[in-house]
């Protein structure tokens, strides 16, 4: 049986960042990365960016770490294999090809899968999801021949894919189940600001709607909505959330909930097993709650913290997460925990009318999160306000004044 001192399941940002941190602190210990994809580290973030799809950024820019990097760092890459079972007592992981690998320390950084729909016609050619490079390649090929395209879902994927489709010259329709785009992360005013930007570019938006059937011979040529409307369509991209595959981990005795549960050190409920990235549900020290934070920046940082812990340099993960995107001449950023739970105070800053609108979310007198539309330049200052737990209970007026420089609150 093959064995490694450090075994990492998952070859994305979290897994690779962990391997790097381990190697920086342990020159000799054997490290292996198992990935269900055949590719070495590539930029999953780039997969949803129009410039990449439209060839404005060369395809090869997607590769972040080549063979040389793994070789230099003496990290074994076992691609195209899925972990199927874990035996914590024997310290072994079984793989889809029948191999079993033993480990001393294990990291689970497998990420999440896209949520799939289950309606008649869902398996037809032209129905897409976006997680892997293969998915990206299929979409790139699809936009070359489609004329009418549909995105489903009112979040990042829907936003970025709609941008891509209209830039590619397709007749684009966005279908969302909710009453407005990005509900509930944005408020209605913010959601409508996004919708106006999309509509201005020629995108149609159908709200409170869902597709009940996809018709066509082998490939999609029409969709049927719940209210009976039919739309011509050769391409559909679903961006309706993610699902973590936790079954094999639960069977192994690890505590799971929405994700694989970990403490602030990215340690799971069993010794010798760490987690990081989109699959991790960890204790967030700044927000004081258990969170799942699925984005590149978090995955990278969590991987580093897990790797340090595995190498014996235990450190707590203390980090304000954020995610940004842009499209339709609109720049969007979410910082910290921007969910408007009960008891939180929301301070508007700017307005949709002036095309620059933020919401700063407070709990117990401190900033917990923010949504920023065309105000991404304030992201740095806001993350520092969150990170330093600065009391802003007497500064509501300044927070709500769009011309006030938020950096002054850090002084």
């Amino acid at each position: 049986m093959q064995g490694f001192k450090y075994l990492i399941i998952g070859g994305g940002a979290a897994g690779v960042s962990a391997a790097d941190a381990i190697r920086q602190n342990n020159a000799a210990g054997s490290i292996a990365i198992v990935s269900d994809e055949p590719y070495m580290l590539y930029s999953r973030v780039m997969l949803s960016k129009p410039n990449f799809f439209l060839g404005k950024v060369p395809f090869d820019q997607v590769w972040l770490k080549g063979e040389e990097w793994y070789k230099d760092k003496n990290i074994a890459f076992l691609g195209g294999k899925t972990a199927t079972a874990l035996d914590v007592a024997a310290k072994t992981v079984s793989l889809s090809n029948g191999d079993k690998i033993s480990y001393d320390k294990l990291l689970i950084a497998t990420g999440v899968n896209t949520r799939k729909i289950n309606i008649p016609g869902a398996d037809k050619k032209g129905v897409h999801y976006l997680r892997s490079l293969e998915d990206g390649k299929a979409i790139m090929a699809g936009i070359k021949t489609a004329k009418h395209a549909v995105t489903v879902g009112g979040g990042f994927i829907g936003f970025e894919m709609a941008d891509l489709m209209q830039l590619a010259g397709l007749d684009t329709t966005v279908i969302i189940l909710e009453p407005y785009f990005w509900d509930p992360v944005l408020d209605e005013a913010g959601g409508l600001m996004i919708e106006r930007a999309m509509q201005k570019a020629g995108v149609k938006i159908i709200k409170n709607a869902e597709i009940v059937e996809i018709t066509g011979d082998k490939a999609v040529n029409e969709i049927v909505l719940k209210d009976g409307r039919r739309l011509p369509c050769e391409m559909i991209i679903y961006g309706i959330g993610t699902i973590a595959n936790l079954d094999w981990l639960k069977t192994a005795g690890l505590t799971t909930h929405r994700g694989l549960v970990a403490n602030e050190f990215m340690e799971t409920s069993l010794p010798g097993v760490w987690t990081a990235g989109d699959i991790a549900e960890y204790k967030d020290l700044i927000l004081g709650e258990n969170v799942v934070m699925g984005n590149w920046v978090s995955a990278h940082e969590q991987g580093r913290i897990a790797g340090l812990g595995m190498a014996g340099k235990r450190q707590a993960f203390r980090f304000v997460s954020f995610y940004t995107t842009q499209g339709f001449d609109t720049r969007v950023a979410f910082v910290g925990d921007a969910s408007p739970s009960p008891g939180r105070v929301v301070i508007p800053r700017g307005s949709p009318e002036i095309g620059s609108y933020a919401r700063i979310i407070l709990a117990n007198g401190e900033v917990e999160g923010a949504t920023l539309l065309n105000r991404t330049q304030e992201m740095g200052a806001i993350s520092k306000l969150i990170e330093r737990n600065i009391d802003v209970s007497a500064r509501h007026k300044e927070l709500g004044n769009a011309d006030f420089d938020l950096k002054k609150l850090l002084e």
Partner: protein
Amino acid sequence: MANLKEYPRNRKDSKFGKIAIDRDLCIGAASCLAVSGATYELDGENKAIVTGADAADDATLQMSAESCPTKAILLFDKSGKQVFPK
């Protein structure tokens, strides 16, 4: 032609003489801010800018460049040779 914005670095203890951001590649993912909030900020176009070229040590600066999901951060040595990405 890449749309490079260059920032000289003058730290005596550093092997890097310059940081550059390729604004065509930058998508504002802000992983660089996550690694070093003292070095980078986002501007109004959602692109990274360097506001503290000398703020971070070499290891942190290297890590910030490596964390970029679009390889938009370039590092140059004191002689002006690009050392990252290789």
